């Protein structure tokens, strides 16, 4: 045995040599852009309350560094471990989604309308965020083990049943935004898994009927319905439901082609846009950097999605392909629903913009997803 040749072969196949640096760079760039936007959105308010204007930026930066550590940890694992433990991860997630609703265990947000997270050591751990990755892993595990190249109807029902349990739990929190994300992940993965067009159409029809029923049967509460439909009819929506959207549109629209300049946006600095540092962070880019700035942010997302889809094609096994496709679907739907909501073409649902929105769980889950993509990319030869 030629030891030298063997070493060379081993070195060539060492996963660390196949890191997708560009993907990491893109994620890092989005986080840095996010920190600048976050500072603009929060500094004047914090200063007005005599607080450190950087307090939120610092917290977000620390979370992002933690996210990079997670990427590092996850890349050391072979992604196929996730397939092994998929069932366990899935069941743990379901347990967390149930527990978060138990009084005294889950934390309630300030408005008292939803109970969505655990308060742990000053961080909010939101199980519904984690649920997205759990569903991706679980569905990839199930779909990759199918015997036929195309899922049969009974396969499909099995897959949908697996996805439906966490989806319903998330929906009842209530967290409509994450419910939409979960549904899109399921669809995205089913498409990549080779589901027949006929079945996809049936699925779409069933989904529409379900949406119709939730509205008709009063599962959707009034305040949610008003927010959801405000974008369809801006002028007749109730004042409160309209306010978010109006202010958001004014912020983005007033940016013009090149924006009003960093830290100069009146909508941003005078607090006109509610929830601007979380769900409406994109308005800062729109107002202060204009159309060109907004397009730059979208370009970064497009490149990340390109890398994710590329990884899905490069993966050496169907499980990796499906996980990468699920992650791509997750990023794509969150980006589309969030930006679409900010600019008035999608309903207002609480859905964070990956890497940009302020919030620990969102950042950590996004980096975990990047870690999983890297793991797939690095091990495409081994």
């Amino acid at each position, binding site marked *: 045995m030629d030891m030298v040749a063997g070493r060379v072969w081993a070195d060539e196949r060492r996963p660390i040599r196949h890191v997708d640096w560009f993907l990491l760079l893109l994620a890092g760039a989005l986080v840095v852009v996010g920190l600048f936007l976050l500072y603009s959105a929060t500094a004047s308010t914090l200063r007005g309350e005599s607080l450190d204007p950087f307090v939120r930026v610092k917290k977000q930066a620390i979370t992002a560094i933690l996210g990079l550590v997670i990427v590092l940890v996850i890349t050391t694992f072979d992604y196929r471990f996730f397939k092994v433990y998929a069932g366990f991860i899935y069941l743990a997630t379901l347990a967390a989604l149930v527990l978060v609703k138990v009084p005294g265990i889950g934390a309630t947000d300030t408005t008292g309308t939803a109970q969505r997270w655990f308060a742990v050591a000053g961080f909010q751990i939101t199980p519904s965020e984690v649920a997205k990755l759990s569903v991706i892993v679980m569905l990839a595990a199930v779909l990759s083990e199918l015997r036929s190249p195309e899922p049969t109807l009974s396969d499909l029902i099995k897959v949908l049943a697996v996805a439906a349990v966490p989806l319903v739990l998330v929906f009842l929190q209530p967290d409509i935004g994450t419910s939409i994300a979960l549904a899109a992940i399921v669809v995205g993965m089913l498409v*990549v898994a080779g589901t027949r067009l006929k079945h996809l159409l049936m699925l779409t029809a069933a989904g529409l009927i379900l949406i119709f029923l939730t509205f008709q049967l009063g599962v959707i509460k009034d305040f949610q319905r008003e927010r959801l439909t405000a974008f369809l009819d801006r002028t007749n929506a109730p004042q409160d439901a309209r306010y978010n959207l109006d202010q958001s549109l004014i912020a983005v*629209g007033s940016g013009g082609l090149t924006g009003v300049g960093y830290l100069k946006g*009146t*909508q941003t600095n005078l607090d006109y846009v509610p929830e601007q540092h979380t769900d409406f962070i994109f308005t800062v880019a729109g107002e202060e950097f204009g159309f060109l700035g907004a397009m730059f942010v*979208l370009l970064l997302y497009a490149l990340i999605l390109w890398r994710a889809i590329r990884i899905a094609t490069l993966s050496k096994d169907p499980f990796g392909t499906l996980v990468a*496709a699920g992650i791509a679907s997750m990023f794509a739907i969150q980006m589309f629903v969030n930006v679409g909501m900010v600019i008035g073409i999608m309903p207002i649902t609480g859905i964070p913009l990956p890497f940009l929105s302020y919030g620990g769980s969102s950042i950590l889950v996004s980096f975990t997803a990047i870690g999983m993509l890297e793991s797939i990319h690095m091990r495409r030869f081994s």
Partner: protein
Amino acid sequence: MSSRIKVLALLVALMFVALSTRLWFLQVLATTQFQQEARDNSVRFVYTEPLRGLMYDDRGRPLVENQESLEVRVNRDAMGSQAEAVVYRLAHLLNVPVRELVARLQDKRYYSFQPIPVAEFVQPHVRDYIAEYQELFPGVEVVPTSVRAYPQGRTAAHILGYLGPIFAGEYDRLKDKGYQQSDVIGRSGLEQVYERFLRGTQGVQKFIVNSDGETIRALGVKDPTAGNDLHLTLDLRIQRAAERELADELARARSGHDINGLPLKANAGAVIVMDAQTGAIKAMASLPSYDPRWLVQGLTKSQASYLYKSDAAPSLNRAIQLGYVPGSTFKPITALAALKEGFATLGGYYPCDATYTHPGDTSGTVFHNWTTANLGTMSLAKAISISCDTVFDRFGSDFYFRYVQNQLSDNGLLLQNDLRGFGFGAPTGVDLPSEGSGLVPDPAWAKTQPTLFPDGWVPGGDILTMIGSTYVMATPLQLAQAYSAIANGGHLCRPHVVDQVVAPDGGVVKQAEDHCSRTLPYTPSELAYVRGALGSVITSGTAQCSFSGFPTSQVWVGGKTGTAERPPHQDTSWFAAMAGENPNAPKYVVIAMVEQGGFGAEAAAPIARHVIEDIYHLPNNHQGGCAVGDR
């Protein structure tokens, strides 16, 4: 599997297309609108009302001033759940019926968040009470405001004008000029015409506010600039004299009778005193009148119905807004037209028969003189002096023949052109609102009056116009302008009431320019001839009785009586005069007009006489009673 990944990629690409398209629309195509909305969002304005400019007479005596009023304003939005109780408490405190207060609060011109003024001139104790018990009066505030004061009372009310609220329909137009819905605006007289000078500039403080309405910082303060003052040509002393003499004579005339033996109504009248050399109006009176202080205090029901609905129409300025048939006061003007066209000459003699028939007219139309006697032939001056109609009727025929010969050219309307040259048939351009045009009848006008002129323009049109009768109409101001031209040697001066507009710092913003730039085509000798004829009216003509005992050696007076038929009403009594120490350039023109006042010599001439006496500090020693003269 890779083909299915392409489907996923396609779906993702469609998302980017949708988002980019929408962003392009918002940020590039529709950005202007959003930029405006962003500005509206964050900037709030607090306005300070400027002090309105004042008005003075020609010697700086105040005519209009400002005074402070405590105004109660109610913000309906801020009354909250207590609204009903607040209204009851406030009505009780202000001592007004609840119903009336509610009606004021339902004023549709205001948005619910705008404070509505509900009471002015409240006592200081009301302000103190509301301040002390503010929790009982949410949304109610008492603020000092500036309102008009009239140190001379009713004097010159029509000229000064008054202020009024902005109508709902007007506000859209005015808000761009910096008006608030609660502002007042000039509604008549000089207040209306000089609104933009008098108003001043609002002070404004700009604040950047955040979404909670908290002030982040002040952007800048602009102090209000007081409005400009008006220095009028009016002489308060003459103005008062004109108003007094007009009122006295109206009362006196009512004890007289018309030619049918019925008591004269003498219900209304007007007096103008104008500087004949400049067009400056020294006095302008119109009765019935009103008290501008009513409008400051808020009109009572009876005041409002008197002012706006009664037949007396006291808000009308009869000196400028209504055209009247001028009667024989027109003759000096038509005489000049006849001289200019060569129908009359300075040395000519003309028959003053009892009746006149247009040559060749077989319709049986006969024009009567005011007397049935045949007065023989006479000069033009004599015809003016005794106001012979038939002499002028003949010139009317001459004008008509000229019209028939030259129908297709401008020369066909010589008489009408000459009268328009004197300023008749069009507003004089005085700086007062709603001026009347009067009427110079001509063939075109006749066509629009088929019942009066079924055969179109006929000789009677020119004949009647020649003696100022029947169709022709003039405002007292047009007559004053025309007589001034005769007095000053043929210059048509635009009448004006404001001499200077002066800024608060004393700088002159606007100075009355030379108003006498138009020169009329009459020779100095023609004008002097007519002035002489007017002088003889006083000494030996139709106004001899009215001016008996007047010291014409001290102050020369020329004038002309007019008695205009106005069926079914009683005759309009006119006197148009000029007076001055120099008979060749008399300084003042005085026009007096009394509706339903009988003969010119009866009601109007004594007014003119007394006003002239007042101007020159001469004793008033005539008691009227000259019910004689022309028709």
